């Protein structure tokens, strides 16, 4: 239901205030009145009004000065100025200062009705716009970026700060880590969020197709170009363009891309008209671009143009603590999409999932959960629902230190923390073992 529109009448003539007050009251508006600009500004400090209907000629501060003050406080305010002495000059001045409209007293009842109806329509549209924007923001809320680990928190912090800027971003990370999601998150949190996010998978297109895809083409530019077509750069005007697998583009395309990034202008394939577009570029790659630059396979100037900010997405094996959250998220996602009742996962299965290596990263975990939901009994995911044999078990001991720590702990636990027996089993002296316990801050499980 539409909210009640409020109107503040500002006029030094009591009869005018009363007339308008009654008139608007009968129309169902919330109405207040003030006899001068000073009082009106005081009222506006503590109350919000959708429409302010103000006389221009008032003792003390006049309507135009009040209009300027209201506009500086609330630029969206709809102020309608009225006067008994209409001159073109004052009308123009009022409109230049941001008045919504200008009326000469007395006015025809129908004019007043139309004026207020139009203003009300504008307010409704603004309200609707605000509501829709909020809806879009909630839709764009990138909830797929799940994780509470330090690595993830750091990355999300970077996303948040870089989103507010206009800088080019390169997102690096292994395949399946969610580079496009991060790119979407940057876009969704940026001032460009109400404009398009255009994604191009550079690796999937040949050089000529990529050229036509990025720059668009004119009718007849090549065989099969039957219509004019906008390119992705043109579509991303005011928004962001995401170039996935940027490392795969040819040397020729690298030169073209560099030119476009520098001038933000380009021509369609087969066209002769220069088109400009205001876009932000976000790239992603799972390759080491710097070493490609050193080898001469990626242009250095393009690399520096793109690599203003680099966001590194940690692989899933480096954020094992996020797995329960991700598992929970994917279970909910697939139960909902498959129209199944909410399922859960048993502790053994979850522990096993935390031991995996995930060469395919989150994409692989997602596939495992999706499969488990499909083949499982629909209530609880157990070990038998997981395709374990195909997955490399993660030792979670990336470094020698990690390996040593885990191994010593295992032996200590095996000998119930009897230092002498553990040291004998490890073939080291007791002092060395004590030093290792101190170094790795090892403690018995019950402490």
């Amino acid at each position: 239901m539409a909210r009640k529109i409020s109107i503040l009448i500002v006029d030094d003539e009591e009869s005018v205030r009363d007339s308008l007050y009654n008139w608007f009251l009968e129309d169902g508006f919330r109405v207040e009145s003030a006899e001068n600009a000073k009082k009106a500004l005081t009222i506006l400090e503590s109350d919000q009004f959708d429409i302010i209907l103000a006389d221009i000629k008032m003792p003390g501060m006049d309507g135009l000065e009040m209009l300027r003050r209201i506009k500086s406080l609330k630029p969206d305010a709809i102020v309608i100025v009225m006067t008994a002495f209409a001159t073109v000059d004052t009308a123009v001045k009022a409109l230049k200062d941001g008045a919504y409209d200008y009326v000469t007293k007395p006015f025809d009842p129908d004019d007043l009705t139309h004026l207020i109806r139009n203003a009300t329509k504008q307010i409704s549209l603004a309200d609707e716009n605000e509501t829709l924007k909020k809806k879009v923001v909630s839709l764009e809320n990138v909830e797929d970026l799940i994780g509470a680990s330090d690595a993830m928190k750091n990355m999300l912090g970077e996303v948040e700060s870089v989103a507010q800027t206009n800088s080019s971003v390169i997102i690096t990370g292994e395949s399946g880590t969610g580079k496009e999601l991060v790119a979407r998150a940057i876009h969704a949190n940026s001032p460009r969020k109400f404009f398009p996010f255009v994604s191009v998978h550079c690796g999937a297109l040949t050089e000529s197709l990529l050229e036509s895809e990025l720059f668009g083409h004119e009718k007849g530019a090549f065989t099969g170009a039957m219509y004019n077509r906008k390119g992705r750069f043109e579509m991303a005007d005011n928004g962001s363009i995401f170039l996935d697998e940027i490392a795969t583009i040819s040397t020729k395309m690298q030169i073209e891309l560099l030119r476009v990034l520098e001038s933000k202008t380009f021509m369609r394939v087969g066209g002769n008209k220069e088109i400009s577009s205001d876009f932000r570029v976000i790239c992603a790659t799972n390759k080491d671009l710097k070493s490609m630059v050193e080898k001469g396979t990626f242009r250095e100037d393009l690399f520096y143009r793109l690599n203003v900010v680099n966001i590194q997405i940690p692989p899933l094996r480096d954020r094992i603590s996020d797995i329960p959250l991700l598992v929970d998220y994917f279970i909910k996602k697939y139960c909902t999409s498959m129209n199944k009742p909410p399922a859960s996962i048993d502790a053994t299965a979850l522990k096993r999932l935390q031991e995996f290596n995930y060469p395919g990263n989150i994409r692989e975990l997602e596939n495992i959960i999706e499969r488990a939901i499909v083949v499982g009994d629909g209530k609880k995911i157990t070990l038998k629902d997981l395709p374990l044999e195909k997955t490399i078990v993660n030792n979670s001991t990336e470094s020698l230190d990690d390996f040593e720590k885990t191994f010593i702990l295992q032996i200590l636990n095996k000998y119930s923390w009897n230092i002498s027996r553990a040291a004998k089993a490890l073939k080291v002296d007791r002092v060395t073992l004590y030093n290792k316990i101190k170094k790795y801050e090892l403690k018995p499980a019950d402490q």
Partner: protein
Amino acid sequence: MNLPNITLISFGYFEKELLENTAEAVKNEFRCSVNIKEGHIDLSEFYDQARRQYNGNNLLKMIDAMSFPGSVKTLGLFNVDLFIPILTFIFGQAFLGGRSGIVSLYRFNNERYGMTGDNQFLQDRFKKEVIHELGHTFGLIHCHNTDCVMRSSNYVEDIDQKNQQLCPNCKAQIGM
């Protein structure tokens, strides 16, 4: 059970038939008894020389100051051109949720718009606006229902398009 009483008080010349028909329409719409009275005042003090019209605000205040024992609402009926300071003219006005209102017959006559006079139109318009202003005194605001008598009317054509009755929603609002 005693029905609430509404007083229609006319100032200036009105045909008896018009007043009686109007009273009947009001009676039917608000399920009340209606008193018709004749008022005698000097309207010249409400006349605005510059605008050549009668000040509706002051006339409304004058009606509001009148009291008729047993009457819950009083509506002043006039045959002069009414204005309020901010508008070029009004058909009538009332205190929202108050006890008084005014309506003028002046602008309801077709002849005023260069057309042939039509007594039926005149009567219908008058009845509708009397019910409309009384509706305001019962606390009703303008209604968006195109048929409802409480729909706002700035021209006589607007009045012609609406019904003489309150819509079910407006009726419900005043407990009828």
